[in-house]
């Protein structure tokens, strides 16, 4: 059983502020509790299949010119740099 403290800790790590307890923590709690059904699936010995994409199948790693300066679209672009909030 998941505790509310665990959920709130993760929310904090995800940089999400939870004001309305009912709206978030209670509902998230109910949702995660539903996932307990996975324990009954009997898949402990199952292998996880992953699709492997060989590096040769990837797009060539080269610069593709773009006709606009995307950096100028940033909210706090200051001409030569982007203003960001200070790190504590």
């Amino acid at each position, binding site marked *: 059983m998941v505790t509310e403290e665990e959920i709130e800790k993760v929310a904090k*790590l995800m940089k999400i502020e939870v004001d309305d307890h009912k709206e978030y923590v209670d509902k998230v709690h109910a949702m995660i509790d539903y996932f307990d059904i996975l324990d009954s*699936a009997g*898949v402990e010995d*199952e292998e996880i299949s992953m699709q492997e994409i060989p590096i040769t199948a990837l797009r060539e790693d080269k610069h593709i010119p773009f006709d*606009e300066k995307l950096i100028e679209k940033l909210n706090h672009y200051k001409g030569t740099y982007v203003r960001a909030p200070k790190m504590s």
Partner: protein
Amino acid sequence: MNLKISALDYVQEVQNGNISAEDFTAATLEHIHSIDEKLHALLSVNDDAINQAREIDKKIKSGDKVGACFGMPISIKDNMCIKNSKTTCASKMLENFIAPYDATVISKLKEQDAIFIGKANMDEFAMGLTTEFSAYGPSKNPWNVDCTPGGSSGGSAVSVSAFECIASLGSDTGGSVRNPASFCSAVGYKPTYGLISRYGLISYANSIEQIGPVTRTVKDTAFLLNMITGLDPNDNTTVDNKNEDYLSGIDSGVEGKKIGIIKEMMAEGTDPAVVSATKDAISKLEGLGAICEEVSLDMVKYSVAAYYTITATEAGSNLARYDNLRYGYDFSVEGYEFNSYIQKARKNFGPEVTRRMIIGGFVPSAGHAGKYFLKALKVKSKLTKEINEAFKKYDLLIAPTVPILPFKLGEKIDDPVSLFLVDINTVTANLTGKPAISVPFTISNGLPIGIQLLADSMNDKMLLQAARALEQTVKLPEVPI
């Protein structure tokens, strides 16, 4: 002007000179202005549509090469980028986001002279199945405006079934095209994973989501697929379909085809009207020469939990980019420390997106991944094995698209777990990468019921042929608008 025609009929009519793109577009816009206030299918309407239609008419008159759409009005779910136009994802977070480039599907449709008549409403970031999580308010079901149209591509389905466009593109991560198509009596298609490029689709859960058409007829879906499928260097998950022509041979029927009826998708809790419609559809397919028998996919019982675990994990990662520096709404950085700044920005996510981000952080985290995320991946693997086994025996699988009828707006919004269970029949196709289609089949007490067919990967053409055969067994009433 008959706005109710199919895409193929529209093309024929324009080619024959019976209608012009401009007149059709003008009539469509007029209809949108008269009805969309009530239905709220569209988040924005293309002000330049008439001019674009006029240019296409000019090309037709002067004998220039014209694309296969001939100015057909198409709506686009608002999570696909159209250059220089707003793409909000139905979120306050992207309220003012102007896309700097075209999604691949958009480039392909532009080349074919489609007109993007408007951006369709959806659940915020495609998370939901009623459109009630749109930051701009829900869409209404044209069959009964008190009911949800389904979601998350609800606006796409409403706009097609209420004649605000001829066709639409939605995206389907767990049924988001098929569910609203079923609820609004439209055709909804989730292709084989990789058949359509996701470049320019705002990411939710990359490993399972696909763009898919919503149309009035199965043939129209095939017509759209012919234009938007294929390899894309900008999306390395795309597959080479060798320029398959999905329209050719679409009337091949289902004679001799073996169809498995998925037992777990007609389990307890399925509405009796939905069970009855599905049995009727099976009888009709048998009448056309198909051989139908029950098949069990045991993992379906766990599919919804696996689906939400996997999608929340991917969403938690994808949505981390909304830090208000690269995307987001504008407020000064002055006076903020980094974490509090991002926390403030993220308050612009709606409740469902916020919940899924928290879940997306929780289920793969150290100490919990083994119980949730890794187990979900194992269910996904086992479900894929089960369905691959089924496809050794059967050409197609059948089930109701949604186990219940369209329900009242507001009825389930406060109960996320009851909403989960509405997805039970659709998430299997996404988790396993298989193509699936919802075909409008009947109207029960004034509400539509769709039937879902699934095929093995890259058997999209056969799936469309079967859907076409099923579609032809019914004649449905007109939407009461």
